[in-house]
């Protein structure tokens, strides 16, 4: 065991200044703890990529009315789901005025700006932000407990380490909380940021002032690979992209860059981004495994929050990660304060964290969506059902000289043509209802 007496010691080291890390750092620094927030990128958010939609509830509880000061883009009032096939698409278009007033439901954000602001709140509360440092090891004490971190030759000690280092969390693996993540539990999110004048966006998406639209696209968008497309309006840019399961991508020998280019050239989508200028392109890992994928959350001297804890929901209609990350950070901060009071930072001492997550919306929602990954593996979702829906609409709206068929027989014929049996239909319906 190395002698650590000459090394700096802090109360908490947070690794990763994404939304989970910065929230945890803020909450703990606010209580007077000595907190160091380490980020491997040149600034918080530089290594992050989100669709990105932030559901407001969890941050609102920590920083009430944060939207008044934080760099948020638009508040989402229009939610659209698109079932896409090769030549047609079927949309569900929902707009709610309630969403255009405080406390708002969700905002689109740009991570580079947003994360920076959030980390600044943590700094203002007293946390020390350390950018451009990459943590590569945990330090262990006599009983194997985590007592700090190391970056290259430099070391730093703390009572507790918070692993907030993202979907492919290195620390969680290092600390033995999880093994290597199987590729079917990880998604690849790929996104383009496309610039368009504000007025064009507002006109095209039928938005008033700072209202925003969120589109979820299912079906052809991902060329059969499990996943979906999204399109969100920011102030003067559009975030358009796809989340796809990594193993499927690999198996189908598709490159994310090609799939997204194809997606953006689909007539429905192309029309929405027409005339825009590509400003940024990026890809990022996204936890996809749902509840089944979550690692152990606590070990002696360390706990895991955010994407690193596998907290993410993607049910096709809704993609959530940030609000869950923030919720987990809040639970973690509470647990750490209690552990401090007892001076017990062991698994037992920190164990309240898991319980708090259970009781909060975080794990409750994760449980609700537990079957979602499985549901989304259903191939029919990507081919047959979008085809059937668009078939149906075509039938309804096309008029021939010959008398029209009845809707039900139209529907059963369509189902047969697309290789879907009644049994499949019923089973999928049940599955969908339970998972969504």
């Amino acid at each position, binding site marked *: 065991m190395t002698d650590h007496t000459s090394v700096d010691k802090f109360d908490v080291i947070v690794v990763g200044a994404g939304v989970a890390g910065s929230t945890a750092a803020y909450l703990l620094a606010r209580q007077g703890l000595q907190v160091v927030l380490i980020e491997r990128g040149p600034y918080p958010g530089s290594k992050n990529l989100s669709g990105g939609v932030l559901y407001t509830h969890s941050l609102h509880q920590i920083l009430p009315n944060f939207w008044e000061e934080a760099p948020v883009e638009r508040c989402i009032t229009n939610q659209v789901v698109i079932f896409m096939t090769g030549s047609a698409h079927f949309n569900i278009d929902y707009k709610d005025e309630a969403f255009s007033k405080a406390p708002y439901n969700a905002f689109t954000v740009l991570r580079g700006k947003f994360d920076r602001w959030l980390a600044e709140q943590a700094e203002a509360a007293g946390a020390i932000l350390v950018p451009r*440092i990459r943590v590569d090891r945990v330090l262990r004490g006599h009983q194997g407990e985590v007592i700090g971190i190391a970056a290259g030759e430099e070391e730093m000690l703390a009572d507790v380490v918070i692993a907030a280092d993202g979907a492919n969390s290195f620390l969680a693996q290092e600390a033995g909380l999880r093994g290597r993540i199987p590729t079917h539990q990880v998604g690849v999110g790929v996104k383009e940021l496309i610039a368009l004048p504000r007025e064009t966006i507002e006109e095209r998406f039928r938005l008033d002032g700072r209202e925003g639209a969120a589109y979820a696209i299912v079906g052809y968008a991902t060329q059969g690979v499990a996943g979906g497309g999204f399109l969100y309006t920011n102030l003067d840019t559009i975030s358009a992209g796809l989340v796809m399961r990594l193993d499927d991508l690999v198996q189908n020998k598709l490159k994310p860059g090609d799939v997204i280019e194809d997606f953006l050239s689909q007539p429905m989508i192309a029309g929405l981004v027409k005339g825009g200028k590509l400003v940024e392109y990026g890809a990022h890992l996204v936890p996809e495994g749902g509840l089944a994928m979550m690692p152990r959350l606590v070990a002696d001297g360390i706990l895991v929050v955010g994407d690193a804890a596998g907290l993410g929901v993607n049910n096709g209609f809704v993609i959530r990660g940030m609000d869950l990350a923030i919720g987990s950070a809040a639970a973690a901060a509470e647990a750490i304060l209690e552990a401090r009071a007892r001076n017990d930072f062991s698994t037992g001492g920190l164990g309240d964290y898991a319980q708090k997550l259970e009781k909060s919306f975080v794990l409750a929602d994760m449980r609700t969506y537990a079957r979602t990954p499985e549901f989304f593996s259903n191939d029919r979702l990507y081919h047959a059902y979008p085809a059937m829906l668009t078939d149906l609409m075509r039938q309804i709206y096309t008029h021939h000289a010959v008398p029209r068929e009845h809707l039900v027989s139209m529907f059963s014929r369509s189902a047969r043509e697309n290789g879907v049996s009644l049994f499949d239909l019923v089973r999928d319906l049940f599955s969908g209802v339970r998972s969504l």
Partner: protein
Amino acid sequence: MNIIVCYKPTPDASDIVVRADGSISVERAEWILSPFDLQAVEAGMRLAEAAGGKVMALSVGPRQISNSKLKKDMLSRGPDELYLVVDDALAGADTAVTARVLTQAVRKMGSFDLILFGEGSADLYFQQVGLQVGELLCIPTLNAISKIDLEDGRLVVERSLEDEIEVLETSMPAALSVTTDIALPRLPSLKEILKASKKPVTEWTLTDIDVQGGTVKAHSEIVAVQAPPHVERKKVVLEGKPAEAVQSLVDALQKEGIL
């Protein structure tokens, strides 16, 4: 030994926006430290570490230079102290004005053995201020310095000119503008980043350093800052197998009368 290193944070050139009329805007750009200045800082750090001494970083400019991230960033590179002269009147200051203000600040900072400057600023790159400051202070002032050594209290430097490298000797105090190959800047370590927040920062106004209004008057009227002129290019991509593509090129060049 006391070493002063002057630096100039500037708007990040990659955030330049070209307006519809062809003019340039850096309003939304973030201000960053310049790699040229970091090289000078590194040179100063190595000398101070070898000979024993301290490094003081100095910058003058509008309020953007007082950004806490910039201050922390500079201090995490090693300097012991930071001095700033902050005044919006210095926004877009020309080299003569900058040099005069720096000179006044240096006089207030006390004695020094060496003042170091980067090769040029990241935005304008006029490569002037270091030379002007040295001359205003009436001390030996040299540019293009690629190596600095101390020998019995004298300065022995290598100066990289176009055809040759001169080995020159002169006395201290001196002002040196260094080249890009003087020293590879160190990456800020965890320890240095943490220490940075605890180091002393002194911020002065123009009045604090006895600079009168007349000193900051511009010596040049800027008429326009525009995007560079564009030559329309054919952008023909020669396709096909390598041998074919190459032949197409030769044919095209012959046709154009270039060969």
